[in-house]
Every structure is written in structure tokens, then in C-alpha cells.
């Protein structure tokens, strides 16, 4: 193994032991699912940024910036910041007061329908699993590049590490290791990206050369036409909007906060850190064609890490990609396993299960999902577009439940039937649009998440207006005062 491989393996071993050490206090279901609601702001920020920035960011987004220009990729994080602040400073506190263990828990409490509960659980399972596959696809690119391992070996090695400490430590392991990873890829991202500009002679010479050779980097639509660029901008911003407000592995972080204010503070920290990391990382890659225009987009980050920075820094960067993938995947694993065990198996098949049994089941479900992800990730052809596609497809599913989630908090008139029809039609529509896009039936510029969100919202509002609230719906936000929120 070369220097890169040795340092990366050492780093991953450290990461594994950090996760196991952090998880040694995990004894109860509340610990495993929500860290016993004890997380301070910096841990919440760390886990959110780390979970948000997966290998998709490092491998695919940099590749897109390299090929098409930086602006659509950077602009989506503006929406991430705005949506995070809306959650942290306003809406999040209503979810916090419900004392949820999982996001499908919200649907169970707010709407009195087993069908709504089931659909919400399926949304979590399907979206988390496909998202995990997208993240693992990106990770294997780096692992193959770094170690020369085969696809299967990379998958087994990384999945084994993730499964071990998610099984043992649950949310606590995930959050603590996420925060370590946040620091690592903060360093990697702020040094790797700018290395491109430094190699070009600084920002002045870089701009001069770009003006002559690749002027598209200064246009908001990049190399695409105005219409296609506009739809891309819309799709990526909608992606962020839906992700931040509706992705279960992100909004579940509300439940781990030690107080409402602590969660709000965490969102403010995120609003400072995320723009700095993203601009530092992604913007620079749009200038990379000036140094090497022959690289495949999916290999841009590994190429820069190996060729433009000292070996140690490059290794941190590459290890950071694997770390970013692991941090996102552990969050996804934890959510998917929690939903499978608590919201599906316990809720529908074994309601009398004790907390001890549920904890054991949750751990078993992590392993089960790991096996599924392994087979799903064993795909022959990988490109930045495939990874991006899987990511967009997975996250579009959240658009199906977003209206039920937030209208359920903000509007007393949101009914169970509205939620049922909204998710029941929204989810298959989004899946159909996503598959249709892949098959070439649906235009490539059409964003499934945007149309899915519009359809789900219209159905939610329309059906709620013509139906009545069920007797045992739990109304959360009256709109009258904070004190009126249901405990």
C-alpha cells in the first residue's frame, strides 16, 4: 500500500474506534434513537453538516462544477441555509415538543391512520436505502482510486465499519463521529479546492485564463442553455429545500437537541460554516479544466487530492470523502433501521415488544439493511451522473411527505385523509417521473421533486378542505401562541 492507503486505513480505524467508544453509553432505546435528547449545538451542527455533505458532494458536485460551471451546485446551499434557519428559528420547536423517536412517529401522533403511518415508514425505507446506495457508489470510486480494491472489497470494508458502530452506539456514535468528520473534511475541503487556484497562479491569473478559455464559469447557467440551466437551478434548490425540511436523517436531529434554543443555535452555526466550506470546495473546481480538461468528472476530486497538494493533505482529503460517506451513511442507516424496527415491525406486528427487545431488533435491522445496500451498490457503470441521479431520485421521495409534515404542524385544518391522498399519490408519481427520466420518456430537464411537491401540496390542501379532522388527531400548532402547543 502507498502512503495514501496507509494513512487512510489508520484514519478509518481511528474513526471506527471513536464510534465504538462514543457508543459505549448507549443502553436504552432513547439513547439509541435520539441520544437521550442531550446534544449541544456544536454536535448538532457537526452531524448535520457531515450528514448533508456526503461523498455525493465531494465526487459528484465537484464533477458537475468542473463540467458545467459552479453556480447551480453552490446556489443549492443557499437554500440549505435558508431552510435550516426556518427550521431552527421557527418550526423546529413544534416537532421538538412532540418528543418523537422517529419521523414516522410524527405521522402516527398527528394523523390517526395506520395507512398514513405505513406510507411514511415506506418513504423512509425506500428513500434512505436508495440514498445509501448513491452514497456508497461515490465512496467506492474513492476507495478504488485509493486502495486499488475491487468494488466488492471496497463495499464490504466500508459497510462493515459503518455497521459495527451503528449497531453498537446508535445515534450517539453517529453524532460524535459525524462531528469529527465535519472537522476533517472542513480541513480537506478548504485546502483541496483552493489548491487549484494556487496552482493557476492565484485568483487574478485564474480569472484571466478562465476568461480566455472557459468563460462559462462566470455565467449562472454554465455550459447549459438558459432554459436547461434554469431548470437545473430550480431542481437543485428544490432538492435542498426538500432535503433540509423533509429528509428524515436531517430533521431527526431536532429530536436529539438538549433544548429548542440549542437546536436554533446549531442552525445558526450551520449558516456560518456551510457557505464557507461549500464556496471553498466547489467554486475552485470550475477552474480545473484550465489544468486538466481530460479528467472524467467523477475523478476530479481524487485527481486534485493526488496531484496538487502534499501527500498528507491529499490523504486527509480522500479520507475525508470516505469519512463524509460514512457519516452520511451512518445517519441513513440509523434512520432506516429505527423505522424498520419501531415503525413497521413493532407498530404493525409486535406492539407489545419491550424496550430491550426493540433495541436488539434495531441493531439487527442495521445489519439487514447493510446487506441490502451491499447488493444494491454492486453496479458496473458509475459516473457522476449516475450518482447524482440516484441521489436526486432518493431525495425526491421526501417531497411526497413534506406538505403533510409541515401543514400538519401549521394548520389545524390538515386532515388525515389529506395526508393519505397527498402521500399516496405523491410518492408513486415521483417514482414514476424519476424512472421515466432515466428511461428517456420524461424530459431530462423536468425536476421530479418540484412537480412532486406541487402535486402533493395541492392534494393535501384540496382534500383537507373537503374532509373533516379525525377524532384522535393530535393538533400541534394552534397559531395562537407558543404556550398553546400540545405537549
Amino acid at each position: 500500500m502507498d502512503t495514501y492507503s496507509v494513512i487512510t486505513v489508520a484514519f478509518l480505524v481511528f474513526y471506527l474506534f471513536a464510534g465504538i467508544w462514543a457508543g459505549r453509553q448507549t443502553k436504552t432505546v432513547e439513547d439509541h434513537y435520539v441520544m437521550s435528547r442531550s446534544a449541544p449545538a456544536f454536535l448538532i451542527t457537526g452531524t448535520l453538516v457531515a450528514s448533508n455533505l456526503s461523498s455525493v458532494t465531494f465526487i459528484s458536485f465537484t464533477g458537475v462544477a468542473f463540467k458545467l460551471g459552479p453556480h447551480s451546485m453552490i446556489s443549492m446551499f443557499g437554500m440549505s441555509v435558508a431552510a435550516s434557519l426556518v427550521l431552527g428559528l421557527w418550526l423546529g420547536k413544534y416537532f421538538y415538543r412532540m418528543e418523537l423517536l422517529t419521523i414516522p412517529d410524527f405521522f402516527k401522533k398527528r394523523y390517526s391512520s395506520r395507512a398514513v403511518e405505513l406510507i411514511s415508514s415506506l418513504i423512509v425505507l425506500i428513500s434512505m436505502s436508495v440514498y445509501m446506495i448513491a452514497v456508497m457508489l461515490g465512496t467506492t470510486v474513492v476507495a478504488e482510486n485509493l486502495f486499488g480494491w475491487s468494488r466488492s472489497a471496497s463495499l464490504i470494508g466500508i459497510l462493515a465499519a459503518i455497521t459495527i458502530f451503528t449497531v453498537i452506539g446508535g445515534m450517539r456514535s453517529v453524532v460524535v463521529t459525524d462531528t469529527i468528520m465535519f472537522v476533517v473534511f472542513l480541513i480537506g475541503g478548504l485546502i483541496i479546492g483552493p489548491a487549484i487556484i494556487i496552482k493557476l497562479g492565484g485568483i487574478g491569473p485564474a480569472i484571466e485564463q478562465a476568461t480566455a478559455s472557459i468563460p462559462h464559469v462566470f455565467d449562472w447557467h454554465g455550459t447549459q442553455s438558459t432554459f436547461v440551466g434554469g431548470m437545473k437551478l430550480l431542481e437543485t434548490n428544490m432538492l435542498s429545500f426538500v432535503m433540509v425540511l423533509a429528509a428524515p436523517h436531517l430533521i431527526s436531529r431536532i429530536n436529539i437537541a438538549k433544548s429548542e434554543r440549542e437546536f436554533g443555535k446549531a442552525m445558526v452555526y450551520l449558516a456560518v460554516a456551510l457557505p464557507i466550506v461549500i464556496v471553498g470546495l466547489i467554486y475552485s473546481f470550475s477552474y480545473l479544466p484550465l489544468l486538466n480538461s481530460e479528467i472524467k468528472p467523477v475523478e476530479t476530486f481524487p485527481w486534485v487530492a493526488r496531484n496538487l497538494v502534499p501527500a498528507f493533505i491529499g490523504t486527509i482529503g480522500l479520507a475525508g470523502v470516505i469519512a463524509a460517506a460514512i457519516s452520511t451513511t451512518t445517519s441513513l442507516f440509523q434512520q432506516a433501521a429505527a423505522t424498520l424496527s419501531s415503525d413497521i415491525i413493532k407498530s404493525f406486528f409486535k406492539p407489545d415488544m419491550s424496550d430491550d427487545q426493540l433495541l436488539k431488533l434495531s441493531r439487527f435491522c442495521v445489519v439487514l439493511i447493510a446487506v441490502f445496500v451491499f447488493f444494491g451498490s454492486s453496479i458496473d457503470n458509475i459516473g457522476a451522473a449516475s450518482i447524482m441521479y440516484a441521489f436526486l431520485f432518493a431525495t425526491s421521495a421526501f417531497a411526497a411527505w413534506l406538505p403533510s409534515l409541515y401543514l400538519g404542524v401549521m394548520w389545524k385544518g390538515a386532515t388525515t385523509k389529506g395526508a393519505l391522498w397527498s402521500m399516496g399519490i405523491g410518492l408513486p408519481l415521483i417514482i414514476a417521473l424519476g424512472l421515466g427520466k432515466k428511461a428517456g420518456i420524461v424530459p431530462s430537464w423536468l425536476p421530479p421533486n418540484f412537480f412532486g411537491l406541487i402535486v402533493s401540496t395541492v392534494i393535501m390542501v384540496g382534500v383537507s378542505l373537503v374532509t373533516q379532522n379525525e377524532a384522535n388527531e393530535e393538533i400541534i400548532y394552534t397559531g395562537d401562541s407558543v404556550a398553546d402547543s400540545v405537549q
Partner: protein
Amino acid sequence: MKEMNRNVGLYCALISGLVYVLLNIFLVFRLPKVLDTFLVFSWVFVPGIIGSLIFYVMDKKGSWDGKS
């Protein structure tokens, strides 16, 4: 609540604001086409500056549930 903790929103707004201004001076305003990048960077940084200030005001007014 400790004074530093109460002013955390203000400090975050200042940090974000400073980085935003420096980026504009040393990068954006040197581009041959300024507006597109200026708008994108503004969209990324300005919500954070505003949100941080809102958090600061919420702390001053005691708008949380009392646990800090």
C-alpha cells in the same frame, strides 16, 4: 445565560458578514461578469447573516422556552 452565549447570534452574523465582504472584494468584483456570481454568493451568505441577527434578537427578547 452567560453574556457570550447571549451574543452568539451577533458574533455569527459578524463572521458571516466579514467572509461575504472579503469574498466580494477579492474575488467577485474582479470577475469579468460580476452579477451572476454576486447573486449566487449573496444567496448563500445573506440568509445566514439575517438568521444570525434574528437569533440574537430572539435571545434578547427571551423568545425560547427558558431552557438554555
